[in-house]
């Protein structure tokens, strides 16, 4: 069920009144049933995979919890009778069992994800190698699996670290895993926040409803007026790397930057707004990312929840793991600077390789991830140099001009890296990117070039105005949430703003019969 479908709007129109009309103590059960309908409507196979995830994570979390309890009881019982070393061995035995349970559960869940993401690619690879028929070509990701697997596994890892207790009721874990707005394109959430909020009773609040409506309408506005329009041109540019070269690539980079922003943030606005309709607060996934002054800052402000997940559950544990510490100690003879950098460099590159792999099975994603990691490491190493520059030229670096320069530099850099997302092979991506510096064809771009991409000048003008509106709103948001200021002006003003948003979507949006509003780009990850 697409967010941009009439079926989804109907689904919401039924859910919201039912949710607030039923007794509060059964609200979460009603929501779980609606989640089940949403999941099953997307396909039975997806539902089966989700049940496997819920079942295995539930069983593993309860087993880990039970092992912690038994460990505490055993250690208390032998406190006076056993030596310190014996007690340590007992604790290690329990630790080993917990780790085994965790690894088994991770293997099942990431195994499913791996097969669905890479099955088709492995099939093609083995067919090329052994000359057999390519197997697994119909394997595809089921709805939301990349997002709910990470959220639910995050819950399990928190139980494993003993930062939260295991949930005793499997249906409550099922509610968290299957919460429908999160299945389209995340964000990746945490059980202790969203999972708990879903279980709380919620009353209808007209003001909150209006505020949520504004957020949802703004999400649709970005998706249907800007993203779906620009996507037509981006797809056309990416499909013909033999034709669209040179300055077309710069056009492609900028259009894709605007398109992806409108698409992903628009979708998350709808998700967060739907959560708000029901009284459930969902974590923000963006913090005006295109105003970042470096790539590492950008990654702290774009798809925040994925970055946090990798940092919390992969980057830090890996950096302080025994093998990494041993490696760091082993390289001390090469100098303190080298040995201290070993954990950081290896963990950063591995996390970025995994981030690339999460985005897709094509080698281009892996290269994209590693290049991001490399840029971040280089930037970290250059920090002392930047600091000296800032010290020498304080007036220049404090100026709006310099800040603007760093923002534009970051957008161009991240857009250059994203070129890898547009093409099927690394060769095509690099060849297209470097053609920008060898082929000067602005004449071809503006003499019919951009008109051949499936959009009219009117479309470009509408999308351009949309981009200006998004930019202006982001600038305004620096002083605080825009919705709060709209709400402060009263209900009538808020309703008028909502109607303006809906009205402009109806006039300028790309939707309706005969037009297939596209799925969100991040849904394919």
């Amino acid at each position, binding site marked *: 069920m697409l967010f941009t479908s009439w079926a989804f709007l109907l689904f919401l129109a039924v859910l919201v009144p039912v949710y607030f009309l039923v007794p509060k103590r059964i609200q979460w059960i009603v929501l779980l049933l609606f989640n089940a309908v949403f999941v099953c409507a997307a396909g039975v196979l997806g539902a089966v995979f989700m049940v496997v995830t819920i079942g295995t994570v539930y069983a593993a979390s309860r087993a880990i919890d039970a092992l912690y309890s038994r460990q505490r009881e055993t250690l208390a019982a032998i406190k006076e009778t056993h030596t310190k070393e014996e007690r340590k061995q007992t604790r290690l035995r329990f630790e080993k069992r917990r780790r085994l349970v965790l690894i088994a559960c991770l293997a099942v869940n990431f195994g499913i994800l791996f097969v669905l993401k890479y099955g088709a690619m492995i099939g093609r690879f083995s067919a090329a190698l052994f000359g057999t028929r390519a197997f697994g070509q119909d394997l595809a990701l089921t709805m939301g699996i990349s997002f709910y697997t990470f959220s639910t596994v995050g819950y399990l890892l928190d139980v494993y*670290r*003993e*930062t939260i207790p295991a949930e005793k009721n499997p249906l409550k874990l099922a509610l968290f895993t299957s919460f429908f707005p999160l299945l389209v394109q995340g964000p990746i959430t945490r059980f202790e926040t969203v999972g708990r909020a879903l279980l709380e009773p919620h009353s209808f609040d007209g003001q909150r409803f209006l505020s949520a409506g504004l957020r949802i309408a703004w999400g649709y506005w970005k998706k249907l007026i800007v993203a779906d329009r620009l996507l037509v041109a981006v797809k056309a540019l990416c499909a013909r790397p033999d034709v669209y070269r040179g300055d077309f690539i710069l056009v492609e980079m900028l259009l894709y930057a605007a398109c992806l922003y409108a698409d992903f943030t628009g979708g998350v606005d709808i998700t967060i707004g739907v959560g708000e309709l029901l009284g459930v607060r969902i974590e923000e996934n963006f913090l005006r990312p295109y105003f970042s002054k470096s790539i*590492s*800052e950008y990654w*702290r402000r774009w798809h925040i929840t994925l970055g946090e997940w990798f*940092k919390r559950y992969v*980057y*830090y*544990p890996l*950096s*302080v793991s025994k093998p990494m*510490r041993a490696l*760091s100690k082993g390289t001390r003879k090469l100098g303190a600077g080298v*040995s*201290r*950098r070993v*954990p*950081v460099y290896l*963990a*950063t590159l591995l996390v970025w390789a995994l981030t690339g792999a999460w985005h897709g099975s094509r080698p281009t994603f892996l290269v994209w991830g590693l290049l991001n990691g490399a840029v*971040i*490491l280089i930037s*970290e190493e250059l920090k002392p140099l930047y*600091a000296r520059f800032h010290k020498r030229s304080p007036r220049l670096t404090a100026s709006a001009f310099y800040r603007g320069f760093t923002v534009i530099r970051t957008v161009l850099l991240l857009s250059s890296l994203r070129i890898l997302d547009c093409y099927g092979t690394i060769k095509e991506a690099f060849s297209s990117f470097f053609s920008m510096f060898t082929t000067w064809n602005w004449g071809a771009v503006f003499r019919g070039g951009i008109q051949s991409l499936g959009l009219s000048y009117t479309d470009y003008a509408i999308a351009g105005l949309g981009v200006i509106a998004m930019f202006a709103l982001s600038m305004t948001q620096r002083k605080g949430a825009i919705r709060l200021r709209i709400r402060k002006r009263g209900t009538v003003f808020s309703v008028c703003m909502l109607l303006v948003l809906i009205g402009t979507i109806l006039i300028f949006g790309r939707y309706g019969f005969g037009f297939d509003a596209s799925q969100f780009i991040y849904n394919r990850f």
Partner: protein
Amino acid sequence: MEKLLDILRELHPETDFETETRLVDGGVLSSFDIVMLITRIEEEFDVVIPARDIVPEHFNSAKALYTLIEKISEQDD
């Protein structure tokens, strides 16, 4: 505590670590810095900070970090 402050100053000489209480939330310490810091703490204090303790509240101030180091040292003993 002075030893810890020296390590922190090596990373960011421009920061006043005795008073700063938003080292992570305020963006002074990046994840890169945190891992470098953990490696230095292991070298100087012979203390390994486990992954579960790598959370902003333990790294937001030198004082909080020192309390964590002391807590882990006591557990190890």
